[in-house]
């Protein structure tokens, strides 16, 4: 039976006005890049250039752009497996992200992680995690380390930990929020609530479907924001990060958005009602932000089309790079198993003897 359409709950924060035109234009460029990248990822998956699981940010672009506009370079970012857009906006080149999806050695994780496990130590994108909620305890621990390594203040680093709505029902979520609340850690947990954990609605999965309210159990602020409003998302995330870095006050931020397509690229989402699909399409943040900027005179139709075209070209370059990049060398199979060399490390390929006969 198809799930009922959701009614969008009201945001607990307001978006700000009076934003500089350059900033708005920049945000549209970012949204357009994520949109183009994800559409091409879907296409490349269909062409079997990409394997395994592949989850897209389609429909979540305003959320992705807003959150990544709020986070600072010094902050650490942990995400779930729907991570392409975040990696792009953290500053990783579309080439390196697409190459990772293609399983190439030039990929952000050397081709060893794939779509779900994007990692870049330089920009402090600390993964990309395929196990639901697996990122939450390590993100909490990174915040614990930060608390002990530096003093609180406006220049301190914080951790942003992204998770999906379905993730709020697992133990790791509750254990981690308890630790963060108890130890006053500089971390912002962001629930990217697209209404569906695979095919299960929040209402069918969570006894308290207003997920931000779960923060109350851990004496931390819970905030809900409209994920289709890029400025509101940015401002809410900035405020949460400010509390984390200046007051060591962890925050739970819930961002309400829609997933335009299935759970992953292979999911036709037949469980979704046509009504819900219609709402998702009507809420699509990319065309609506585009229209808003055109109406406001920030962009002309021509400008907007040029931005979309540029994003498409950028992604085409990434596809060429990924396609032409070499695969990882089989001789390097065991290269990263251990950081400290160790005696008697197993390094046999299937069928090879585990040791020489004496």
């Amino acid at each position, binding site marked *: 039976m198809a799930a009922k359409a959701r009614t969008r709950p009201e945001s607990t924060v307001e978006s700000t006005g009076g934003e500089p035109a350059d900033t708005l234009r920049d945000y549209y460029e970012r949204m357009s890049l994520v949109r183009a990248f994800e559409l091409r990822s879907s296409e490349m998956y269909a062409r079997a250039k990409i394997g395994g699981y592949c989850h897209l940010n389609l429909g979540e672009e305003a959320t992705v752009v807003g959150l990544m506009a709020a986070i600072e370079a010094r902050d650490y970012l942990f995400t779930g497996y729907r991570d392409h857009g975040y990696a792009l906006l953290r500053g990783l080149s579309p080439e390196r992200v697409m190459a990772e999806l293609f399983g190439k050695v030039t990929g952000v994780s050397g081709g060893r992680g794939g779509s779900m496990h994007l990692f870049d*130590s330089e920009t402090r994108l600390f993964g990309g995690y395929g*196990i639901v909620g697996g990122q939450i*305890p*390590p993100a909490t621990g990174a915040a614990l380390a930060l608390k002990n390594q530096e003093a609180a203040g406006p220049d301190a680093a914080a951790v942003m930990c992204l998770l999906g709505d379905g993730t709020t029902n697992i133990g790791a979520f509750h254990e981690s929020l308890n630790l963060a609340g108890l130890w006053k850690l500089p971390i912002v947990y962001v629930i990217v609530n697209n209404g569906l954990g695979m095919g299960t609605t929040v209402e069918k999965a969570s006894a308290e479907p207003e997920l931000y309210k779960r923060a109350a159990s851990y004496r931390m602020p819970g905030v809900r924001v409209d994920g289709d409003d890029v400025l509101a998302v940015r401002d809410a995330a900035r405020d949460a990060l400010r509390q984390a870095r200046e007051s060591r006050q962890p925050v739970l931020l819930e961002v309400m958005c829609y997933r335009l397509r299935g759970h992953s690229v292979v999911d036709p989402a037949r469980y979704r009602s046509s009504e819900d699909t219609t709402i998702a399409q009507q809420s699509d943040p990319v065309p609506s932000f585009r229209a808003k900027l055109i109406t406001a005179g920030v962009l002309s139709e021509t400008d907007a089309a040029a931005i979309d075209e540029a994003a498409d070209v950028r992604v085409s370059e990434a596809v060429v790079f990924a396609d032409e990049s070499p695969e990882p060398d089989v001789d390097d199979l065991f290269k*990263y198993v251990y950081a400290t060399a*160790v*005696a*008697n490390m197993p390094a046999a390929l299937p069928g090879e003897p585990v040791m*020489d006969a*004496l």
Partner: protein
Amino acid sequence: MTEIVSTEVATTRTITYRQALNETLRAELEHDDKVFLIGEEIGIFEGSYKITAGLLEDFGPDRVLDAPIAEEGFVGAALGAAMVGMRPVVEIMTINFSLIAIDQIVNHAAKMRSMFAGQVSIPLVIRMPGGGGQQLAATHSQNLEVWYAHIPGLKVVAPSTPADAKALLTAAIRDDDPVIFLENLSLYSAKGEVPDGEQIAEIGKAAVVKTGTDLTIVSYSRGTTTALEVARQLEAEGLSIEVVDLRSLRPLDRDTICASVKKTGHAVVFEDDWLSYGIGAEISATIGEGVFDFLDAPVRRVAAAEVPLPYAKSLEKAALPSAADLAKVVREVLNISSTPNDN
């Protein structure tokens, strides 16, 4: 880290396994300010088994951090702290509770370095005791080492003496990979000579702890102490038994095991875990692959009875592998009939 290093003249003291662990944790907290301890009841309670006695008082609550009962949360938090440059040493009260944290250990700590192409290292130690024989019943008496020894990306060590407890714990804390450090409830009060000064063992290396020519007993942790006891007892009967102490379960030092069995032609594995798919199965297969032509008898395994361990003393005793069980199997492998006073 290629060999045992002693930076001072080798003076020794006789101390317990517990004291060796405590002194090593203290020394490493002093050695590197990135090292911190985290676990349940390790601070004011000083640890369920008093391994961390006195450390909270001397190093304060940031470095000896009491965690709530949330193994998945605090083991994962230690992992995250390791990712950003700290060197956490986790105490899990017993290995049984590590199953609550197994997602963080197996799916995350063991995978991250490989999955992210070497961009991150995980200098994390997880200390935990296992073992039965304390009438703690089925859920609190397990030897689950094979769960961890199976996983690439982890290193798993199991010291059997106070000296090894010191040298392997130092090595584990200074290693840049996740190390599972297996203690044993029945070893905590065992005494032994421990060299003073900095001692760093080489992970991945077994040790021949007693030489012999007739048969090799391969064991680890508490099992090694029983193996030595049996070897000495049989020595009095004229049998020459060699004892190999694995010390490291992953990586496994197959060369040392096979070199010993090549010499003796007979092997028995003595292990505290369950028989099927256990540590002994891997050792047997290794011997079969490495030195089959030198074997004069099939390899035998002496392991725990495959039952959730009962509380009642009589049943518990029957289920756990004993010195008598080991002596009986050694004689069977050597085809020697039992002496009347052995029971």
